[in-house]
């Protein structure tokens, strides 16, 4: 039991939805999305730097109903007195307790642990850690509202990279990330929560748009190799679109 927080009853459950029992399951068609997007269209995106006053760098990102905020602290001295010629990038990914359909606990679960690791793997190739010996850069990401978990991770990577740029930490390029979903042989970009429930697989691409290099790919689900290649292509194009939004918000922050 967690004694450091106000604890309620031992077990709480989400009530069953009345309409869910009666409604027929509808099959999702990427050509007819609820918000009238085309399969290769992202949700509209808003980004802003300087969301946390005391952080060295910070950013806020909103796309559709998805809301992510990120704070970067450092470079600061590594707490363990271990000598290393390279800096470390410490990433923590957290869902706010109220951000998902079911309430999340404060304790880190396996998904958050996996996402923290992905975040670190996607960002560290871009950061000049060789210039930061004996130092740590802490990247904290908090998801305030989640609408599709893979797209939340993509948004977190984009947001964190923007915050790193805001902190003035030297990077080779900013990292833009984008997710794609598969349903049968069809591919579609940026699945929201409802679409994610129906997809048979997903792909997440982290990409440095100016250098034209990939930092991280993760794909799950059974799909043909052709579909994967096609998904990579449309993700690369989408990352370039995200890049222009990132550049614009960075320019606004300087003006």
């Amino acid at each position, binding site marked *: 039991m967690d004694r450091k*927080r106000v604890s309620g009853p031992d077990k709480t459950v989400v009530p069953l939805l009345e309409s869910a029992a009666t409604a027929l399951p509808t099959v999702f068609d990427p050509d007819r999305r609820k918000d009238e997007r085309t399969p290769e269209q992202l949700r509209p995106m808003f980004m802003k730097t300087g969301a946390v006053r005391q952080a060295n760098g910070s950013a806020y990102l909103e796309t559709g109903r998805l809301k992510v905020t990120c704070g970067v602290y450092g470079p600061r001295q590594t707490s363990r007195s271990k000598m290393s010629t390279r800096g470390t990038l410490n990433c923590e990914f957290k869902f706010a307790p109220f951000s998902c359909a079911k309430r999340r606990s404060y304790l880190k679960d396996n998904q958050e642990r996996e996402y923290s690791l992905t975040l670190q793997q996607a960002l560290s190739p871009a950061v000049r850690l060789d210039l930061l010996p004996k130092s740590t850069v802490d990247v*904290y990401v908090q998801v305030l509202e989640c609408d599709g978990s893979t797209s939340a991770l993509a948004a977190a990577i984009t947001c964190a990279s923007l915050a790193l740029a805001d902190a003035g930490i030297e990077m080779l390029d900013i990292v833009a990330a984008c997710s794609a979903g598969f349903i049968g042989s069809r591919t579609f970009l940026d699945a929201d929560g409802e679409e994610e429930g129906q997809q048979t697989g997903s792909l997440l691409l982290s990409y440095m748009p100016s250098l034209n290099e990939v930092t991280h790919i993760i794909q799950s689900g059974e799909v043909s190799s052709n579909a994967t290649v096609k998904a990579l292509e449309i993700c690369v194009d989408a990352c370039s679109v995200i890049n222009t939004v990132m550049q614009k918000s960075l320019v606004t922050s300087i003006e």
Partner: protein
Amino acid sequence: MQIDPPAHTPGAPAAAAATFSLDPETFKKVHPAEYHRRFLSQNVRSDGRPLDKFRKALVNVGSITTAHGSAMVRLGHTTVVCGIKAEVAEPRPATPKEGYLIPNVDLPALCSPLFRPGPPGELAQTVSEYINRLVNSSKVLNLEDLCIASGAAVWALHADIVCLNYEGNILDAALIALMAALRNLRLPTATYHESESTVHATEHRPIALVLDHFPVAATFGTFDGHHILYDPTDEEEPLLGSQITIVVDGEEGMCGLLKPGGAAMTREVLERCTRAARDRCADVSAAIDLALAAQRID
């Protein structure tokens, strides 16, 4: 080209070298108390406020759709988000009709370099515990309104208050956010099926809660004994001799008073702070009313 002669007399360079000067940012870091004292002697604070002025409370409700009720509150740069999730739980055997209201304040490492990742620190724990005691003992809402089926199922309201940007006075901000989110909260109509012992809820959320009280906290700090600082910031907080939080409910009521040790305080100061807290209460409830009205128009 003619070079201008130096403006000072020959004796001046030696004098300039003898006076030691620091730029304001360095001075603030080296002598924080003296830095603030210089401002206060001019009756102004380092953020430009007069001593007896609260930061304006900016409230926004209903922005988190995954929560049953939500609010975002800003006091200066201090930003907190409260999201309330309603889930179903078994009631306590002693109180078969009463639901639960479980407030928790989280100060993640994201919001300030003062906090570390991991389990909640001392500040987060005390604020959570105080707010929990406050709302549950002053009967902000009738917990029996949260009953679905007596002895079998009740609503448990998890009110999680997350700080996104820390600039001091978390208690005031957290309580405003909690109260605004409670007013924004809409519960679905729920029915208990005894045969399967399950609870079914509608997707539509029509039920608003009746709030019997409306506590608003106002925090004050004393600096050097005679300066009273309203709504202290994170820079001022560590320098204060004592802090006092007064929680009032409208024109008459008083819900709580918290003075966690520190320097002694006279009765006059206490009375002055209580009056100021009443004014603050009116301003805050007006701000919340405005936010709720704005949301209804949307």
